[in-house]
């Protein structure tokens, strides 16, 4: 019998690593299972919300502005905590380079526009 194709998901090891990094204490196996479930639900909710915000702006492609609205609603981005500061704080250098516009020689700004494809 053929196996049913599994739903795409964030790797367990990555979830574990991230959670351990922030929790800074040992975690039982059951607790981790709950965290895994929660992150699954989180992504479901996230994609629903992004869809609503993108549709609201009359677009079909999710753009950075939609993500910023989402993160403002989550209370992560505020007037005192701009998105760029969060990017600088939590993302590795190579991603930071992609997300934060940098003026280069010849008066060009890269990247010109950030888009997220799902």
């Amino acid at each position, binding site marked *: 019998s053929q196996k049913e194709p599994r739903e795409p998901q964030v790797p367990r090891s990555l979830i574990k690593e991230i959670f351990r990094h922030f929790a800074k204490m040992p975690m039982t196996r059951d607790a981790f299972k709950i965290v895994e479930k929660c992150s699954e639900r989180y992504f479901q909710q996230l994609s629903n919300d992004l869809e*609503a*915000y993108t549709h*609201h702006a009359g677009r079909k492609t999710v753009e950075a*502005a*939609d993500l910023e*609205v989402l993160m*403002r*609603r989550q209370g992560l981005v505020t007037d005192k905590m701009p998105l760029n500061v969060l990017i600088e704080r939590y993302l590795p250098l190579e991603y930071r380079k992609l997300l934060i516009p940098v003026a280069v020689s010849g008066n060009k700004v890269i990247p010109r526009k950030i888009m997220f494809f799902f």
Partner: protein
Amino acid sequence: GRGRCVTRLKAAVHYTVGCLCEEVEEDKDVQFSKQSIAAISDITFRQCEIFAKDLEMFARHAKRTTVTTEDVKLLARRSNSLLKYITQKSEELASNNMEQKEKKKKKSSTAKGERTPGEQEAAGVQSLHLLK
């Protein structure tokens, strides 16, 4: 000054909250202490600040400067039952507006389509009703 304006607004909110609480008191046969009514009106006032900021953000996100019912619906998305209620009310409002417009058309063609100022206020009042 601004301070006086805020005080007056707070007093107005407090009064309305008091009236709504009275309704609940009669309906559910419970009593609200003065402090709890004051707390609810304070919460309502602060919640309005959050609502206003979010609505402004949603309107700007859609490249508009006017807040519409679509923005209000987006605000209510977090709770399914609230979203259902708000959507239903906005549909009622829309159909009422249509009827009024048709009446206006029949009456005279001189008055050009003025926007009813009640639309946004009504949405605000409904969310206040939900807070009770």
